[in-house]
C-alpha cells in the first residue's frame, strides 16, 4: 500500500530468531475477507510484520514468525481475528536473549 511507509525487509530479522513452527496447526486465524481498515491496524502494530498487503492490494498473514506478544489479539480480537491461542506445547518462538 502506497500510503504506508515500509522499506525494511523484516524477514531478514525474523530469520535471526529461533523458531520451532507448528506446521500442523495455526494458533492465530483471521476471518475470511477481513475488513481492510481492521487489517491495516494489524499491519501497523505487529512487531514481526506478519500482516501484509501486497502491491495489488491482497492481504496475507503468516503465523510462522509470530513472537506471541498478543498485540493483534488486543487490537482486533473482536473484529477480524477469530482465533488466538498460544502455539501448542514446545512450539513457537524461543528467545535466546529476551
Amino acid at each position, binding site marked *: 500500500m502506497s500510503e504506508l511507509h515500509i522499506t525494511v525487509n523484516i524477514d531478514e530479522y525474523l530469520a535471526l530468531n529461533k523458531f520451532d513452527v507448528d506446521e500442523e496447526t495455526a494458533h492465530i486465524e483471521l476471518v475470511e475477507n477481513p475488513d481492510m481498515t481492521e487489517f491495516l491496524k494489524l499491519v*501497523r502494530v505487529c512487531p514481526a510484520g506478519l500482516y501484509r498487503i501486497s502491491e495489488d492490494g491482497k492481504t496475507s498473514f503468516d503465523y510462522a514468525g509470530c513472537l506471541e506478544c*498478543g498485540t493483534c489479539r488486543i487490537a482486533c480480537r473482536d473484529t477480524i481475528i477469530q482465533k488466538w491461542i498460544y502455539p501448542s506445547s*514446545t512450539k513457537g518462538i524461543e528467545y535466546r536473549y529476551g
Partner: protein
Amino acid sequence: MADYDAIIVGSGCAGAIAAYELAKADKTVLVVERGNFAGSKNMTGGRLYLHSLKEVFPNCAEEAPLERRIAHERISLMTSDASFTVDFSSNEMLKDGQDSYSVLRASLDQWLAEQAEEAGADYIYGITVEELVKDGSKVIGIRAGDDEITGEVVLLCDGANSLLAESAVGFQRPKASTLAVGIKQVIEIPASVIEDRVLAGEGEGAAWLFVGDVTKGHVGGGFMYTNKDSVSLGIVATISDLATSSTPIYQMLEDFKAHPAIKPLIKGGKVLEHSGHMVPEGGRNTMPKLVGDGVMIVGDSAMMCMNLGYMIRGMDFAIAAGMHAGRSAVEALDAGDTSAQGLAGYISALENSFVLKDLEQFKRFPHFMESTTRIFNEYPVLVRDVFNKLFVVDGSPVAPIKRSMMPLVKKIGFGKLFKDARGGMKAL
C-alpha cells in the same frame, strides 16, 4: 486432597519468586512454564530496579545474571533532524538498594527458576496451560492437553497477554489504549566499545529513553539499554494510537536505528535477535481483581506496570508481588482457607508495599500521557528550534534571545505550555 498445595502458571519474575517463597515454606509447588526453559517466551527493555529482588535474595547483585549497573540516565527529545539529550549520573543511583541493572530475560528468568527449583519447587517446561479447572466459581487446578492437575491454590503469573485471567477473576481482554507493544533488537557490540560510546565505567552502562520522532509523533518512545556485550534497542508504543500510524512499528525501529543520534551508537553492531512483547500501561485503574476463590493474579497479568515517560517499571513490581503472593498463599494454606477471603492477605500486603502505593500515586499519569500528544510532536520541535537559535552561528547578526525565542514559544502558546506542565505535575 489436591495434587499440589500450589500451582503456578508461568515462570517469569512473579511466578519464580512466588514458587520460591512457597517451596521455602515446605509447601508442595508445581510451576508450569510454556517455554522450553524459563525466559524463553519473555522479553524486557530492560532494566531491573534491584531493591525488590534484594529483599528475596540479598546477594543477587553478585549472583544473578545481571548485565550492567546503570550509571547514566539519559532522555532525548528527538525530531528527524535533531536530538536534545539530558544525561544524569549520580552516586545515589549506585548505592546498595538504589541500584538498577540492565537485564536479558532468557538468562535472568532461568536463574530465578533455579532458585525456586533448588528450594524444592517442581517444574514442568514446554507445556501450555489451556484452561483453569473450576468447581463452581472456585479454581481448583489447571488443564493442559488431556492432563488435569489440581492445586489448593493457583497463582496466575502468565504475563501481559494472559489468556486465563478472564476465567480466573473475570478480567476481560484489556482495551488497546491500556496496553503498549514493545519491539526490540539485541545488537552485539564489544563491551569496551559500549563503555566508550556511552561514557560508562567498566561493568556500568546507560538507560536511555527517546521521545518524539522515534514514534513519528505517536504515543510512546524509544529505548536503549546497554548490556554486557550488546545493546537492547527498541520502541514501545500504545496499541490504539499506533494503529493509526502511517509507519508500522517495525519500520519505526528501522528508521530509529538510522537516526543520526543512534547510528553511531550501534555502528558495526550485529543484530542477534528481534523480539516483541506487550507492556501493560493502563495503570491502577485498569487492574483486575487480584484474588478469586482458589486463585491469585500476579505481575504483568494483573497489569502491574508503570510508564512515566522518564521511567518504566514492571519487573520490580512483579518480584515484590510474587513474594507477597507466595507468602500470603502460605498463610492461607496454613489456615486451610484458599477462598478469595482467605487469600485477601495478598491484597493488603500489596497495599502496604510500594507496589499498590506507587500504582495508586501515579494512576492519573496514563491518561495525561495519552491526552498530551504535544509531548510527542510540538515539544521536541520547540526544543530543536530553541537550541538551533542558541547554538547555530552563520555570521549574520544575532537577534536578542528574547526576540528569537518568543515566536517559537508562541507557536505552541503559553496557555497550552502552562496547561501541560500543570497537568504533568498533577499526574505525577
